[in-house]
């Protein structure tokens, strides 16, 4: 299933947030979105997932979601959004319970996604007992449990320290190598965007417009941290973003 963002614009009252965004999200690819703070990345992601309606334009879905997908468009949140009163397994069960799968099937799914995210031993732990990286892995496991067509990830790693971030990034790359999932990956971090994105969409400062779309041909699992090609792409992205970021930084917050 592919998604297409079609001529999308949005304003909150007088505040123009996004302007004429058109974008393809082909199945099996990760699209990274970067842009200065406040340019509307999270807002765009909310439109893509249908949590909000844009003022203009639309999101078009091409093809059917895969068989057995319980929640085709599934978010992974920056702050994990785990229910603190439920265990790891309970948090995953939450998104399955409404589908009437029967407890055996539900249990099977939970065991499966926990294994895939290397969380099996933490099945009965409460969120407060987990580190930030573990919590995000639980959130990813929860997303995988509903067998999504597209994962919508809003800065999933930015609440984590840099070592954990590296580890989790490796996990995500592994996961992609195995499952070839489709994702929209919003981030501030150029290195993340370059490591994980098949395409990198650069947005301008608010109102967000597409400044540039960079496609990287190197397969995800072949990318190395020290790869000079990636470093040069990162350098280029930074030169594009630098001015935008600086200007955005000087704007009054409530513009």
């Amino acid at each position: 299933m592919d998604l297409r963002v079609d001529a999308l614009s949005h304003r909150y009252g007088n505040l123009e947030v996004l302007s004429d965004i058109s974008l393809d999200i082909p199945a099996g690819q990760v699209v990274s979105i970067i842009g200065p703070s406040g340019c509307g990345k999270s807002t765009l992601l909310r439109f893509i997932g249908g949590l909000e309606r844009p003022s203009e334009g639309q999101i078009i879905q091409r093809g059917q979601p895969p068989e057995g997908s319980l929640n085709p468009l599934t978010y992974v949140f920056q702050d994990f959004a785990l229910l603190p009163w439920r265990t790891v397994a309970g948090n995953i069960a939450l998104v399955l319970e409404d589908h009437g799968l029967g407890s055996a099937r539900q249990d099977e799914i939970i065991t499966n996604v926990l294994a895939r995210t290397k969380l099996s031993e933490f099945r009965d732990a409460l969120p407060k007992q987990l580190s930030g990286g573990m919590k995000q892995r639980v959130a990813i496991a929860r997303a995988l449990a509903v067998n999504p067509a597209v994962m919508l990830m809003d800065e999933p790693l930015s609440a984590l320290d840099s070592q954990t971030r590296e580890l989790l990034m490796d996990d995500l790359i592994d996961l992609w190598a195995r499952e070839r999932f489709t994702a929209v990956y919003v981030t501030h971090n150029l290195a993340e965007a370059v490591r994980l994105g098949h395409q990198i969409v650069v947005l301008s400062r608010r109102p967000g417009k597409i400044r540039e779309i960079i496609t990287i041909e190197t397969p995800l699992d072949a990318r190395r941290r020290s790869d000079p090609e990636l470093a040069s792409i990162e350098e280029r992205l930074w030169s594009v973003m630098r001015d935008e970021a600086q200007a955005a930084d000087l704007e009054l917050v409530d513009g």
Partner: protein
Amino acid sequence: MADTTHHSLGAQTERTAAGADKPHSAGEANTTVRYRGGGFRTHSIFWVGPVVFVVLIAVWEWGTQTGFISNLTLPKPSDVLGTFGELWRTGTLFEHLIPSLTRFAVGSAMGCLAGVIIGVMIGLFSHVRAGLVPVVAAIFPIPKIALLPLFIIWFGIGEGSKYALIALGTFTPMVVATYGAVDNVDRTLIRMGQSFSLSWASIVRKIVLPGAMPGIFSGLRVSLAIGIILLVAAEMLGARRGIGAYILEAGSLYDLERLFAGVIILSALGVVVNFVLGLIEDRVLRWRS
């Protein structure tokens, strides 16, 4: 704290010794960095509370024994204790305690339950909020005691009016606490629920209600304390039995020993209720960090 000081002193001596043969310019003395991170942090010292209690009561007993405190001002603690003994031996304690506990339990259960239900509705539905928040705000400051004669006409002089008084008194703070708690449920969790297409009922039951629990519990603490306060008011009219009636009777007879005994029972009731609530809270809110 003492440990740290000791440590740095040791380090200083060591350094001075080690650097003894190194040339020091005159007047360059070594000093320890002054510790200035103390205070502003309370830690529990378990024995102070009981000691303060014992000292207070001892002074009080001494004062009343010697006549330094006149028996018009305060009763002797030993006499109050004697009154307790009498209450216990004659079985009057339970004669008063059981009706009061029943009134408290029934009244506050009705009030708190209704309060939580209305509070959740206010938290969830804009129309209910618009309609009921002003009503609740209007009821809240009414001294419920003032309505007692009215309740007697409505619900009878028996238990009905007493339940109603306690129920109304616990209801309003519970409503306010509950809808505040619902409002304070982490919006990102609700958004998460929606993003997984959970049904409305599931979101309310699995996200909103558990998320509002901490707020509901703190509301319960306030409401139940009010419930105990209202016990005395509820037993003002038409009650011969009950701790509140006992206190009122003691007051009207200027019987200070019984008055104090009754008041102590009420405050003990408050402590017990709070303790039990704490236990339940620890279990139910085990997930809190």
